[in-house]
Structure formats: structure tokens, C-alpha cells
């Protein structure tokens, strides 16, 4: 016992005692942080766009248009009613498809996750259907249902259904057994167990699923419009690519990408609100 090892030394006078009562703090600190938070992604985005621009202007063939041409095309067409209508159609297909997928995926995900029998029963059929792309059976769908918005929506909903199904399935599997036991002992009804125990446990999984599914629904809507001749961005893309309008093609790709970014932003916001308690959103300690 020679020398001091661990020392916890007193605070310098700075340690302002914090009583239980409210203490006002100036809010200015938040403003720069907010700008900083937006600045970083913006900077990297600009950087990546720069890389694209340079690559497209140097090594890549002229058919791969630089971002500046695509943006210029977008600028010229920013007031083009046809384009906006197409975006509107695509977004409405996306919204309906995602909602359908969300409902069906959640219900079946909970059923298969919670009940082994249901899972074994359905898994064979599910696994058979999943790997077959819609491009292959499109003629059958068109024959049965026609090239209507409903077809685009139902195929997009089907594509978006799978990620939600699986995320929910694994979410159900991840419910803490002790939390589950607690709910049972305190006599929570099945509905309440679902609402207060299962749902919050599944939510982080579902949130990821919805973000994946949202993009898939968007893409599937565009592809179905492209192949099936349903109005929307895909139909515009079909015409422009047949006529070799490369700026337009890349412009539409940029629109699709930006829609993806925006929709993701919306979901991330929503998620942050719903998952405040979750370790992923808790404050970083130390």
C-alpha cells in the first residue's frame, strides 16, 4: 500500500449545484448543431455528385449522363405538368401498395412468428412464390387483371409484403421471454399483450422493414408502370428510353432516388418519435 492508485478528485468550483427546480438554459447551442447535422450529409452528397459528374464526363460512355445534364433536364421540366402527374400517379401507387403490404405483412408476420403451425403451413407456399419475379408472370396478371393501376399496386404490394413479413416474424421471435411472462402473469389480455409487449418489441424490426419495403414498393410501382403500361414515372421512362432521351432517363432515375431519400427521411423521423426508448435512439452514454 504505497501510493495512491485510483483517485476521484473533487470538482472544481464549476460544479453548479443543480436543484430539483427548473433551470433555464439558453437554447442557442442547438441551432449550430442542427445546421451541422444537415451540413455533413449535404457535403458528402455534393462530393458524390461531383464524383459522378467527373466519371460521366471522362471514363464513362456518353450515354451515362453526368448529373449536371440530368439536373438541367429536371430544371427544364420542373413545371412540366405531365411529369408532376406521373410522380403523383407513382406516389399514389406506392402509398396504397405500402399500406396493403404493411397490413398483410404485419398480420401474417405475427401469425407465423407466434404460431409454429401457421408458419410451417404457410412457409412452403411462401418460399415457392417468392423467388419468381413479376416480370415472368406479368402476362398472366395482365390477362387476369389488365394493365390497370390495380395490377401495378397489387404487384408492388406483393413485393413490399415480403420484407415486412420477415421483419415482423423475426421481431416476434425476439420478444424478451421475461417481458412476455410478466404480461401473462399480470393478466393482460391477448390484445393488450400485443399492444404493450409484442408491438414495441417488434417495432424496431418493423421500422427497418417498412423502410426497406417502402423503397421496394416505390421501385416495383415504377417497374410495373414501365412494363405494364400503367401511367406513372415508369411509363414516362418507357417512352423516353425508347426514344433515346438519356438526360430524361437519368433525370427520372434522379427523381426516383430523391423520392427514396425523402420517403426514408419521413420514416426515420417517425421512427425516432416512436422508438425514443430504444437503445438505438437513446443518448450515447459517456
Amino acid at each position, binding site marked *: 500500500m504505497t501510493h495512491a492508485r485510483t483517485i476521484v478528485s473533487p470538482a472544481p468550483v464549476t460544479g453548479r449545484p443543480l436543484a430539483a427546480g427548473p433551470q433555464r438554459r439558453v437554447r442557442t447551442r442547438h441551432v449550430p448543431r442542427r445546421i451541422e447535422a444537415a451540413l455533413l450529409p449535404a457535403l458528402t452528397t455534393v462530393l458524390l455528385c461531383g464524383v459522378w459528374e467527373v466519371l460521366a464526363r471522362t471514363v464513362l460512355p456518353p450515354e451515362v449522363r453526368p448529373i449536371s445534364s440530368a439536373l438541367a433536364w429536371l430544371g427544364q421540366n420542373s413545371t412540366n405538368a405531365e411529369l408532376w402527374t406521373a410522380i403523383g400517379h407513382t406516389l399514389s401507387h406506392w402509398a396504397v401498395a405500402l399500406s396493403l403490404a404493411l397490413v398483410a405483412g404485419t398480420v401474417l408476420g405475427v401469425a407465423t412468428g407466434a404460431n409454429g403451425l401457421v408458419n410451417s403451413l404457410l412457409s412452403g407456399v411462401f418460399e415457392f412464390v417468392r423467388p419468381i419475379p413479376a416480370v415472368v408472370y406479368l402476362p398472366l396478371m395482365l390477362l387476369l387483371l389488365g394493365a390497370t393501376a390495380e395490377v401495378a399496386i397489387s404487384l408492388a404490394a406483393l413485393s413490399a409484403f415480403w420484407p415486412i413479413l420477415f421483419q415482423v416474424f423475426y421481431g416476434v421471435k425476439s420478444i424478451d421471454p421475461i417481458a412476455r411472462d410478466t404480461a401473462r402473469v399480470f393478466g393482460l389480455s391477448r390484445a393488450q399483450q400485443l399492444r404493450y409487449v409484442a408491438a414495441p418489441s417488434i417495432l424496431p424490426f418493423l421500422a427497418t422493414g417498412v423502410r426497406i419495403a417502402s423503397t421496394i414498393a416505390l421501385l416495383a410501382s415504377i417497374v410495373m*408502370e414501365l412494363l405494364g*403500361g400503367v401511367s406513372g414515372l415508369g411509363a414516362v421512362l418507357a417512352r423516353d*428510353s425508347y426514344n*433515346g*432521351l438519356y438526360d430524361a432517363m437519368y433525370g427520372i432515375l434522379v427523381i426516383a432516388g430523391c423520392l427514396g431519400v425523402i420517403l426514408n427521411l419521413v420514416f426515420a423521423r417517425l421512427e425516432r418519435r416512436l422508438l425514443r426508448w430504444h437503445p438505438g435512439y437513446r443518448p450515447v452514454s459517456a
Partner: protein
Amino acid sequence: GGGDGGSAVNDDGTTTITMSFTNNANTAPLVLGMQKGIFRKHGIDLKQMPPSNAAGSSLVPLLLNGQVQASVTDVTAVPAAVSKNIGVHVIASVAADYESPDSSIFATMVRADSDIRSFKDLEGRTVGVNSLTGFWALEVKEAVTKAGGDPAKVQMLAVDLPNQVATLQQGRVDAVSTLQPFVAQLQQAGYRSLGDPAAIALGPHSVGSTIMAAKSFTAENPDTMRTFLRAWEEAVVYANAHPDEVRVVIEQSTRTSADVVRKLPLPWYVSGVSRSSVEKFMDLMVRYGDLDASLPIDQVVWSEAAEADLSTPPPGISLAS
């Protein structure tokens, strides 16, 4: 939806015909006809289904379930469908192939420095075509045969039209078989044409782009179909006579720049069906294994369809000698 194969009669007495076609130079008379009220004048309310990338095989179901009544298609899709007991037939043509002194509608292009001089030289090489099924591949194969080569030794690769130029430029393929406006773009960039495979394979003025309809629809609504064909004929005549208006329509409907459109050789629009041309296509399909046997022409072409007049080109078009 469009009902069950029947055409809808509207309040104003017109009949609605929904067509699926992509906006390009070939289909300009349809748009022009709508704009000028030619179809309406005949009591046809023509509607266009949004454009799609789908090949004929995906459009046929829409004819069968009555969602659309007519569809612009590669002519080879019809015999292929009919041979599988699918009830569609050709009711009209859209545009004929021709060669003008400075260009052709179709061309097989190679790089300027390429050692490929003729279709025969394509042996052992790779050719990009829009689709492996349909007239693109057939024409190249026949052109190779006619040049004394073995088409089995030519590797066909599906490369969609907008990307053919790049793949050719980068040497991913040795040749591409394409059409306007890509032909003009390539020629300006110094690429060399091996010739028009359509003309070589089928002789001058073949018709590869046609309109098809469901047999059930024509059987149940022959009057509507006749009226539609009359309207189409008038639209074609009008289009052939007014090249400037056609160029404006192309510019607007495809949103291509006016510069490109001005230089574009205009299609030769045709309304009737060239039965001989259809038969030649069927022969090619049989020869290259896309069809088991040639079909009777009445199973492939609507019997009431007029015969195409390919003897006199429209005034705006000058033919290569």
C-alpha cells in the same frame, strides 16, 4: 377497364378504341390523327394506353381481356401467338421499310475501324439486337445467310436500343442492328453501315411494324373495326402528305429535340397489310426455328384488311434507286 371484348359506345355516339403504342416516329400518325380529329370524324374515340416497355407477349393479354382493342406490334409476334392458339391477328400496317439516298430506317452498324465489311464477316462475332425474338434477329440472320455466311456462328445478344451505341462503342459487341434516330446518331459519329438488314432479308419495302387486334373483338365488332381502319387509312394519308406536321408531332410526343427531328428521315406510313411481307416473315421464322410451320395467311391477317400499296412512295420520301 375496357369491358369484355366489346367496344364501348359513348354518349356522343362515338366508339372508344383504346390502343397501346409507344410514342415514336412510326406511331406519329396515330397522334396526328387524334389531334386533327380524323378518328373522331369517323366516330372513333381513340385513346392511348400509357407507353410501356413491354414486348408483344405482354400486350397480347390486354387484347384478349379487352382492355385494349388494338396494339402496335412487331409483326412476328402474331404468328408466334397464333401458332400457340392465341387468338390475335394483324389488321393494319404502320410503316414500311425503305432506303433513301442518304439513309435507311434500319441499319446494321459497325465501328469505323472495324474489319467487318459484310454481313458474312459477322461470323464469330457478336451482334446486339433489340430483342432475340422478333424481326431484329431474324433479319440479321437472313442477311448473313444471303451474304454466304452461317448465321449459327453469329452470337446474338439482346441489347436495348438506347444502350446499343455505347456497347458498340466500347467493343462489348462487334455490331448492332438498330433503327432511326440511332442510325443517324451513329452515322454522324463516324460509324459505318453494313446495310439495311430488312431490305436484304425481305427485299425492298417490307412491313415489320403492324397493328394487331384480338380475333374475338374483330369477330364481334366488325363494323367498329372497319371504321377504325378507314380512319387509320385517312390518318396515314394525311401524315404522308404533311411531313412538317408529322415532325412537329414527333418532336412533341417523343420530346426529342427539334434538331434531331429535323434531320430524321421520316417513316413511310402504310395503312393496309402487306400479306406477302407477312408470309416472308413467317418463312424466316420457320427457317430459323421460331415457328414450326408456316401458317395460312388468313389465320394471321384479318381477311377484311386491305392490301397495302407499296408501289408509290409518299411525296415527301425519296427512294434510293
